[in-house]
């Protein structure tokens, strides 16, 4: 196998993988802090992509600029979802030590409602933003890197860095980490646990909003666009370590590279097997994921 081709495949894989990882960050955070498996994760991404699309289609706003609207919108949606839909369930099952499994069903229900509401409102058509910028590429011989994809990758890295810093150094970030470690102890220390939960869900969804704005220039929008990403996010979260932000990006990059490089040797349908094999191996030898802490 030509090393040049392998090199190019790896670069493509890293760029795509970084993007997958960024999408998975929210899921990782939400699960790490609240032990809630958010089945509606893909649906929030879909909203995070429809918002910049409609702002472009109706008002001519550049998708990158619409981050200032999309990110707060998604934050609010996530905050409200936790505050009004999920937390009553938490309060009712407070006596249980483990988080209630019924939350899983609840988020699955939200996913169904959101995807089908979008289908009802917008129809099934695939739409795309048409921008001159979307077509610009960086060219090095056989290697072509689409500028929009590269930007999305760089934004993924930036989100990772900022979020890690936020969690490590700010008071709110430390409250979030404390709640993730032990919710009752955190409450005893005077941390407002329900508020922390709300904010965490909000942050998880806001990340999706930002990434959505960066994906819209090169991808398409449709009510079911979140499904493929949602499924990959679950694999990445477990692979990279639950609750670990850098772990998400790492897991995403591994997945992206395996798909891209594996696809050079076998067909893409078979390359998926490699991804799952690595997933199983990691679970076997390090069940908490590559960068996960002991739960």
């Amino acid at each position, binding site marked *: 196998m030509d090393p040049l081709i392998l090199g190019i495949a790896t670069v*493509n894989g890293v760029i795509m993988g970084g993007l997958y990882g960024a999408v998975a960050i929210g899921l990782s955070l939400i699960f790490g802090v609240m032990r809630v498996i958010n089945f509606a994760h893909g649906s929030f991404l879909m909203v995070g992509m429809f918002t910049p699309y409609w702002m472009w289609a109706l008002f001519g706003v550049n998708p990158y600029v619409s981050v200032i609207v999309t990110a707060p919108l998604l934050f609010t949606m996530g905050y409200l979802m936790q505050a009004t839909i999920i937390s009553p369930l938490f309060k009712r099952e407070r006596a249980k030590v483990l988080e209630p499994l019924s939350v899983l069903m609840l988020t699955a229900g939200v996913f169904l409602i959101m995807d089908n509401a979008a289908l009802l409102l917008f129809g099934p*058509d*695939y739409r795309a933003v048409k921008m001159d910028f979307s077509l610009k590429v960086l060219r090095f011989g*056989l290697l*072509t890197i*689409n500028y929009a994809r590269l930007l999305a990758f760089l934004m993924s890295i930036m989100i990772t860095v900022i979020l890690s810093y936020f969690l490590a150094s700010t008071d709110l970030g430390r409250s979030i980490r404390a709640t993730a470690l032990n919710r009752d102890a955190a409450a005893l220390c005077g941390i407002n646990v329900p508020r922390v939960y709300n904010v965490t869900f909000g942050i998880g969804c806001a990340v999706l909003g930002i990434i959505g704005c960066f994906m819209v220039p090169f991808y*398409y929008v449709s009510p079911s666009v979140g499904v*493929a990403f949602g499924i990959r996010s679950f694999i990445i979260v477990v692979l990279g370590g639950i609750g670990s932000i850098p772990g998400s990006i790492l897991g995403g990059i591994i997945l992206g590279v395996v*798909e891209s490089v594996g*696809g050079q040797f076998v067909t893409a349908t078979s390359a998926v097997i490699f991804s799952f094999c690595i997933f199983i191996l990691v679970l076997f030898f390090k069940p908490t994921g590559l960068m996960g802490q002991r739960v």
Partner: protein
Amino acid sequence: MSNQRICVLLLVFLTLSFAFSGTVSAQAVKEVVVGFVLPLSGGSATIGQQTQTGAIVAAEQINMTGGIASQDGAKIKLVFGDSQTKPDVGSSETERLINREKVSVICGAYNSAVSFPASEVAERYKTPWVTTGSVKDEITERGFKYVFRTCNKAVYDAKEQLEAIKLFNQETGKGPRTIAHLYEGTDWGRSHAANIRKLCKDYGYELILDEAYPPGQVDFSPQLLKIRAKKPDLIIIALYTPDHIIFSKQYLESKSDFPFGVHSVGAGSEDPAFYKAVPQEAVEFMFVQDDWQVDMLEVMGWARGANKMYKERLGFDINAYGAQGYSNMWVIYDALERAGSTDKEKIREALVKTNITSGPALITGYQKISFDENGQNTFAHGVISQNIEGKKISMWPLANRPAYAKVAWPVPAWSER
């Protein structure tokens, strides 16, 4: 309210509702329930919606002109089941339509992966199934008695593509030696791949790349890299709409040169939503195996009435999939007329004897609809069109090519465009 009172009220209510339902049904015009199983959500939702609209327009026209004459003017009632582009859901929807909605005949399901199991369900329940849009050969090769197909089989699609290449080769003296094939990895793509593999041998081309991918691909750069490394003369692609959008965009970015062009066997490239989402340069000079005559509305004026009703609902002109929905509804109506009843056996026998040589059912551009002993309409065919300056022009068969048209063959390199 005491329990006794509730019981009495319930009893009165039930009696009344029985009485009224009796009178209402005696006065209502009879209805014939026709079921459609289509992807109304999921990856093929746009195409499902187009087929659905075609069927609705046809049913409206039939009902407006007096319904089914041989059944006392009974009206057509359409019931739709959403397959969600999933085989298991399509199969359970088929069962629901047969058992709960009591349909007399079913039409479905566009995706080969759905039609294959769902038609087997229909066969088990002895309900006639008219296939729309699914080309997997095996659908009409199982010796089933209740399954019919008006459209192309996969082997027809593949043959048309290669015949067109042969024709262009003969006309210009230049042709490809090596072919690459990229296809979606479910029933439809694999069906096409099996046929391409066989026909390439027959026609004397070398198939240097045979590449499947799982549908819902987010990034085609690994595949494009692989293809470009092999340097084929010509590439054949079988992609559904979302994948086709991403592929065409990335193909444009990569500015890959294939001397004898990109040949798409339909699905995504027959969906108007695809052309809206992709810049014109990405599809320039692309060949498409269209399941119907693309210039139909210019050639057949009578289709304009149906097109107007269709356009009012969806906002764009009727396409291959709208035409299939429309045509199949008329085929079913024709069978219902000759059957004279909603008995499934009579409908099946009427379908077997179908022989349509004129009328709205031929909106798809065929000259005839008649099923062979396997239920396949052997008179189905498509056209191969080329996209020149934003307009799809039929280039094959020669009989369908407009006088002014000239094939761009070999296809100009990116540097010359």
